[in-house]
């Protein structure tokens, strides 16, 4: 299978000479190098201080390990490592592997249409890109991984992002930018040929279904049996509808104004939710069990995905952007002010035995799939190859936006981890052990958690009832999925800054709302994207489906996609084994497999350019992601331990059923046992599908790489270079040389065509 399509020779070098009539559009690479190599005493002192502080923080976390460790060391270790990784490693990648050329115009310049392709200030685009990549993933994964101790998760989040996650985002963004903003799927077809491209497309579609299903499961688990949560999150729907109409009919374009109104209404909904859940009718009306709630989310998902974007999705996007940046900033400041003491051990027994109640499996490979977003997230490849490359102004800015944006998301994951670690360990396990283990009761939870034999854990029933009362919930036992735990952690930290215990219930529901908003937006948007992919695929057989404005086709395909994730959601909600603990690994594996696919495409591109000397930059994270996901998938398929292997579990329950038993393990009836048999079969088959598709993609990428090596390829599938006629600095802060050039541009009379927006 060749990788011919979209390939053009690199022989005829385009003319990128500077137009003498305008100031320089790019700085000479020598100027950049001279600026970097110019080590003033202040600069040296700053970097030495960063390195020392970072080193000290890591020593405090990894070596000293006293009775407790202060959360501030997590913050310092993260920030210092990010700064060093950004300054040195991403610079290395830029210089040797990607070699951006600011003399070339970006798609936002040469395809400019004022709409989809529009030059955007780098600082603004950073905000957009961050809002698009950061969701519930980095908030949930680290919470679940906290059962292995604080150290493994912290190392993986911080080191993983520097060497893997941020590299992936940066590379995909850059390669897509050089190809007019092509999507990952299109690049896969161009680079890997038909078989690899098709496998990548099918993998993306199934992965999307799994991710939407498990995100929805997190929301159901957070809102089930919580009248307050159901009311306040439910109110986001009328609020969004109102905002949509406001922007459509009354005051088009007044985005900031309506966002503020929406935010005020949201806070009112949270406060009102507490009052309504306190009344008898309110508690009765909004207290909804898991299964009806799941069905509600499925119906909602279908309707939301066929409604026009302006009515529901666009306004909720505005709300969640506000909430995202605001809450994360608030939590960061609060952690620095409160500096909570962390009581969790550095590494727990569960990391070695793999018998943890939250998610099963040993540290390797399951830590690396439980924490996906925040360290390495394949889903980002879909964002980094979508909107952002069409908006970027200059090639060199891709480092700040791609690599820097992912570092920010990693920092969100670290804060989520700190929030989860700061709550009492007994409460943590009581909240995250499935109802099958705790029985869903306070007594059951206390007996189970104290029976785990963890040092320093002595849970009392009062602790659980007291916490539940403080956060305004009937119970916090077995609130799995990570979101409620994070919310308790956030409430615990925030009440120390503002409001005391009296405000905990508000902060808890604020955090639940914050996560539910992201997730509902992701469910809606994910269903839409999946529907378009399905229509495109079906269109090859029945051409009418290609017409995406055909209503009936749109409804049929939306229905199919909703049914697919809805089935997985219902399976998770009704699972006698708990749901999150069996399904979450599948979510992580799916996300990491997508990362492996994206990195495989990147490796093929690098190989084709003949840059074999630096191919290890891609091969390192690709190799790691491939080993982790393939090992995890194999364990899920072949492990003889029922808690880990889907088919081992399946066999154990089938055998019990065949023997005529009426209860087995945590399943207390024949129906429950049959459900386990059914669920494990579906989960096992999904694991097989994922790993097979990923192996095909990686194999075709290796083949493309080998062909490139054999042919001494220096070809490229990039779009032809176009001469740039604009200038903008590359990083967050302009360097002195960039400032000088910018001054030349600013001094020019305004002519309209090349006016640079700055302030």
């Amino acid at each position, binding site marked *: 299978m060749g990788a011919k399509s979209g390939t053009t020779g690199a022989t005829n070098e385009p003319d990128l000479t500077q137009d003498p009539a305008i100031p320089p559009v790019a700085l000479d690479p020598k100027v950049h190098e001279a600026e970097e190599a110019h080590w003033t005493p202040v600069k040296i002192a700053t970097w030495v201080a960063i390195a020392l502080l970072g080193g000290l923080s890591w020593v405090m976390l990894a070596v000293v390990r006293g009775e407790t460790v202060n959360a501030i060391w997590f913050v310092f270790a993260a920030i210092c490592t990010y700064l060093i990784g950004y300054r040195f490693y991403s610079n290395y990648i830029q210089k040797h592997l990607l070699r951006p050329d600011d003399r070339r115009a970006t798609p936002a310049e040469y395809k400019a249409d*004022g709409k*989809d392709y529009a030059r955007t200030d780098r600082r603004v685009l950073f905000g957009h890109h961050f809002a698009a990549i950061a969701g519930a993933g980095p908030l949930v994964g680290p919470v679940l991984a906290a059962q292995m101790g604080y150290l493994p998760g912290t190392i993986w989040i911080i080191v993983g992002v520097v060497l893997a996650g941020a590299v992936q985002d940066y590379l995909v963004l850059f390669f897509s930018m050089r190809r007019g903003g092509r999507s990952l799927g299109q690049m896969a077809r161009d680079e890997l040929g038909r078989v690899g491209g098709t496998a990548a497309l099918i993998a993306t579609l199934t992965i999307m279904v799994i991710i939407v299903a498990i995100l929805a499961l997190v929301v159901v688990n957070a809102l089930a049996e919580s009248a307050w949560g159901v009311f306040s999150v439910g109110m986001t729907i009328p609020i969004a509808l109102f905002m949509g109409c406001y922007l459509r009919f009354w005051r088009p*374009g007044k*985005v900031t104004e309506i966002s503020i109104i929406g935010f005020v209404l949201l806070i009112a909904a949270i406060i009102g939710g507490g009052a309504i859940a306190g009344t008898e009718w309110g508690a009765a009306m909004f207290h909804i069990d898991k299964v009806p709630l799941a069905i509600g989310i499925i119906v909602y998902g279908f309707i939301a995905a066929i409604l026009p*974007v302006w009515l529901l999705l666009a306004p909720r996007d505005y709300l969640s952007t506000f909430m995202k940046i605001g809450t994360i900033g608030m939590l960061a400041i609060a952690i620095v002010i409160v500096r909570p003491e962390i009581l969790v051990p550095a590494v727990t027994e569960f990391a070695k035995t793999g018998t943890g109640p939250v998610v099963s499996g040993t540290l390797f490979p399951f830590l690396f799939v439980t924490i996906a977003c925040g360290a390495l997230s394949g889903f980002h490849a879909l964002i980094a190859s979508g909107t952002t490359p069409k908006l970027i102004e200059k090639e060199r800015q891709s480092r700040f936006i791609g690599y820097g944006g992912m570092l920010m998301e990693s920092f969100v994951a670290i804060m989520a981890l700190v929030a989860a670690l700061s709550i009492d360990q007994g409460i943590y396990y009581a909240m995250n052990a499935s109802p099958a283990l705790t029985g869903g009761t306070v007594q059951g939870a206390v007996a189970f958690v104290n029976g785990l034999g963890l040092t320093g854990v002595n849970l009392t029933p009062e602790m659980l009832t007291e916490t539940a009362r403080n956060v305004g919930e009937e119970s916090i036992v077995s609130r799995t999925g990570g979101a409620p735990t994070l919310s308790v952690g956030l409430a615990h930290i925030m009440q120390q800054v503002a409001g005391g215990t009296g405000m905990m219930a508000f902060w808890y529901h604020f955090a639940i709302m914050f996560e539910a908003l992201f997730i509902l937006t992701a469910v809606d948007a994910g269903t839409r994207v999946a529907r378009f992919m399905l229509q495109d695929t079906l269109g090859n057989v029945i051409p009418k489906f290609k017409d995406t404005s055909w209503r009936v086709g749109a409804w049929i395909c939306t229905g199919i996609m909703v049914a697919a994730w809805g089935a997985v959601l219902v399976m998770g909600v009704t699972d006698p084994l708990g749901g999150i603990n069996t399904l979450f690994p599948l979510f992580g594996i799916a996300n990491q497999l997508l990362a492996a696919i994206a990195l495989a495409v990147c490796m093929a591109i690098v190989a084709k350019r003949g840059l074999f000397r630096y191919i290890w930059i891609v091969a390192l994270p690709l190799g790691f992601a491939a080993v982790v996901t393939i090992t995890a998938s194999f364990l899920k398929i072949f492990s003889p331990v029922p808690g880990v292997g889907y088919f081992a579990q399946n066999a154990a329950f089938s055998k019990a059923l065949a023997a005529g038993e009426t209860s087995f393990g945590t399943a207390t009836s024949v129906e429950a046992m049959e459900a386990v048999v059914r669920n494990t079969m579906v989960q096992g088959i999904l694991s097989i599908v994922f790993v097979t598709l990923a192996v095909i993609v990686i194999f075709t990428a290796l083949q493309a790489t080998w062909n490139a090596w054999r042919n001494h390829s220096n070809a490229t599938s990039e779009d032809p270079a176009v001469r740039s006629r604009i200038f903008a600095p590359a990083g967050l802060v302009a360097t002195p040389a960039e400032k000088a050039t910018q001054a030349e541009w600013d001094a020019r009379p305004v002519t*309209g065509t090349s006016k640079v927006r700055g302030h």
Partner: protein
Amino acid sequence: MGAVTTVRTVAAGLAWYVRAVSGEDAYDRYLAHHESVHGDDAAEPAMTAREFWRDRTDRQDANPQGRCC
């Protein structure tokens, strides 16, 4: 005076940033782009604000983008 100017610059910068990140400046940017390409060409009139914002969400309908997990 210095302090007042600084506060004013920071506030203006912040207002610009919030407006840009929320996407409120999209129409202004479209108009600037349109003018730079078509000038005052009567054959290619720019969309009105209302038309532009409708077109913007309609384009999202036709070309959906995922949100991250």
